[in-house]
């Protein structure tokens, strides 16, 4: 072991470094800060990517929705709604359609609290509320995993300002788990209470359906309620056959707008657009962070190249002398590679401490979660490789210095 190290000339490298402490220190500090930033930036990106990767539960690529705003006076909302839905469902290429009060991931919607016991001061579980008819499950494309869908006889009208809730609901698995200690199957058939006192029976459970608010920690908790809104403003949610969404969006918009001049059809939006908009800031932040990481690594890399070139220029004669005394090209190259490895190692050690420190600060200031150690190790290895790559060109230049240089005067 000892022989191996002496063979690697760590001693002379170290002593030479000590003579140019500042230069080495500057590189080490740069590497340390780069690691600190890099690891935390990648970590933030991972957190966002995980959030974005969560399924909404919808058939996202084949669904869209639109807003229907009635302005005409003396308008028969109920008849018009039934006619509209019938027209949409009969359009070739449409799989199903429903009226709905809010759109998943859109940022605006209703929430209510559900309690397992009736009463005023009982802790409840928050849930997003989607009011749909018996076609809701098929139109959204969500998967019913227990119980049954609403019947058309279950659907009731909700007048404006009404606060009564129908007796049945279909809830998501996550909501069931939150209310019944992780045992979602046991939720089926149970009665829960909405608005503190009104009993509602859970008649079905769906796998996944996200709430309208992507930043809410209960985003997986939603409930379907068999109600149709008797409102001047409503939304239609439409599912098409695969691949026909873009073609049908303008067709249905035009058909509805022309069928009736007493209302405005607006915000015709696909679910994919809604997802993009919902996560636009996340996406933008991730792109920015990625750019920062790349540019930072490049700067640190080029900084290493610049300083190594300088130190080699200054040591041309020594290198020449070493070559003249019998050192091979490879030995000269190895000298500079090892020198960089020593500096980088000090840098990444310091950087690892910095990364953890910054993470602790981020966790306490911006409520982020703590860093994974695996990421730290990956960051350390990556930067050591960057250091070696950056120094390899100057080291190559050094190795090509001719032994004859030693005999000449000043280079």
């Amino acid at each position, binding site marked *: 072991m000892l022989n191996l190290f002496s063979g690697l000339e760590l001693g002379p490298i170290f002593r030479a470094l000590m003579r140019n402490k500042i230069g080495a220190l500057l*590189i080490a500090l740069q590497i340390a800060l780069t690691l600190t930033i890099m690891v*935390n*930036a990648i970590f933030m990106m991972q957190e966002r990517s995980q959030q974005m990767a969560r399924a909404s539960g919808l058939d996202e690529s084949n669904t869209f929705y639109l807003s229907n705003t009635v302005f*005409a006076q003396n308008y028969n909302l109920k008849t018009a709604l039934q006619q509209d839905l019938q027209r949409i469902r009969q359009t070739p290429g449409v799989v199903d359609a429903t009226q709905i009060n809010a759109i998943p991931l859109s940022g605006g919607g209703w929430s209510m609290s559900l309690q397992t016991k009736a009463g005023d001061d009982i802790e409840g579980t928050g849930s997003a509320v989607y009011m749909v008819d018996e076609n809701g499950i098929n139109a959204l494309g969500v998967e019913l995993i227990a119980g049954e869908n609403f019947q058309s006889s279950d659907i009731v009208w909700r007048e404006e300002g009404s606060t009564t809730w129908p007796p049945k609901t279909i809830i998501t698995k996550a909501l069931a788990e939150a209310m019944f200690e992780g045992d979602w199957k046991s939720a089926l058939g149970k009665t829960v209470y909405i608005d503190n006192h009104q009993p509602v029976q859970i008649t079905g459970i769906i796998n996944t359906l996200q709430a309208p608010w992507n930043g809410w920690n209960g985003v997986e908790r939603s409930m379907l309620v068999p109600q149709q809104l008797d409102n001047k403003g409503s939304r239609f949610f439409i599912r098409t056959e695969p691949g026909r969404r873009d073609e049908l969006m303008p067709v249905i918009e035009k058909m509805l707008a022309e069928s009736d001049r007493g209302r405005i059809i607006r915000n015709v939006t696909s679910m994919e657009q809604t997802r993009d908009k919902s996560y636009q800031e996340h996406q933008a932040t991730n792109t920015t962070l990625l750019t920062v990481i790349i540019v930072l690594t490049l*700067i640190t890399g080029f900084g290493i190249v610049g300083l190594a070139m300088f130190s080699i220029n200054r040591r041309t004669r020594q290198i020449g002398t070493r070559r003249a005394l019998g050192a091979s090209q490879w030995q000269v190259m190895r000298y500079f590679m090892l020198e960089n490895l020593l500096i980088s190692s000090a840098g990444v050690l310091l950087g690892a401490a910095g990364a953890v420190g910054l993470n602790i600060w981020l966790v306490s200031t911006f409520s982020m979660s703590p860093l994974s150690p695996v990421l730290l190790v990956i960051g350390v290895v990556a930067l050591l490789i960057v250091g070696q790559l950056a120094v390899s060109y100057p080291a190559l230049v050094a190795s090509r210095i001719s032994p004859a240089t030693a005999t000449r005067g000043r280079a």
Partner: protein
Amino acid sequence: MFSYYVKLAYLSCKRTWGMTLLMVCAIGLGIGASMTTITVNYLMSANPIPQKSEQLFFVQMDAWQPNNPFNDDGDAPTQLTYRDATYLWQAQKAKRQSIQSGMAAVIEPADKEVLPFMVQGRANSADFFSMFDVPFLYGTGWDHQADLKKERVIVINAELNERLFGGKDSTGQTVRMAGEDYKVTGVIDRWNPKPKFYDISTGAFNDVEEVFVPFSLITEQKFSRSGNTNCWKPTGSGFQAFLDSECIWLQLWVELPTEQDKEAYFSFMNAYAKEQNQYGRFARTDNNKLRDVMQWLENQQVVADDANMMMAMSLMFLLVCLLNTVGLLLAKFLGKASEIGVRQALGASRNDLFIQHLIESGCIGLAGGLLGLVLAILGLEAIKVMYGDWIRDLAQLDLTLVAMAIGLAIVSALLAGLYPTWRACQVQPSVQLKSQ
């Protein structure tokens, strides 16, 4: 002497152009990244109404659930119930007061060829326009009487005036909205405070509404409310039950010019809470708040976490770039040791050498700063593309920021140059001359 040093700096940079380019790029990138994030943060935390932000107060009263505060930290709710807001407004105890909620309605243009369209609006009381210094292109707002009599009057913005009346003075004309005729009393000139301090409940950087109507009309239920509504207690059915409920959905701003006014108003609020407490409301009678504009924006953290985080990251990024520059400058100046030796031998004092090299660092900083400015402009454009429309007005460089960018670059470069310069001045002329 100065121009001579600049010339020397130029020659020196030309000789080691690779290193110089690397340093200029490093400073440029660091400054570019920092200025991009500083700009967004600076504009997010700007004072939207500096002339009177300390006289305008957001009223918070805590009639929320007795054993479960609205906010986790126990702070008062961010909106008011109809009954509390209207009581405080009707009392008219402040110099000015404006009660408000968001609204939306459909406008049917007189020209039947033009399709009806939806507008986002605000239902507010008369004082809104005077207390927030809203600029008018034509006409004015309405008066207190119009509020009380529920007159169908409307204030529209310049864009809508353009759309409906071709940009002409439309005061006195009518707008058909939500099935009724509203008389135009005024047209607002371009006014888009960022943050939109008077209502940040649905986004602090949204655009100003297109129409404004008397708040009292909201009880007529002709148009729909918009914004957030939070309830903690079941309400009865129907609109009257909703108005009487404990649901919070209204905001009230008051103008209190002096400290005494503020104290008097605060005691009035607290007295009201105490009185209501006797009827079983306001479990936390002393949890009422009067925050001025900047305190309110601070409390609601309108500067996004992401923006703060990005700024911290970019400042660290700048630090790496500076360390890089220190290293390269050090290498560069030490590489000139023999030249420095000659200059010293020819009579240049350490002071001269110090100034000469600081000027060289400053020149590199200036070049880096200019590059940084260009990169900041590109960075802000990229931010507009990536983050979408709402950030448009927050990604705008102004003169202060440009000056700041250049200043930051030069100061950074000088700081970075300090140590290498000092080292350069330590060169012993005799040693250098001997080795020649």
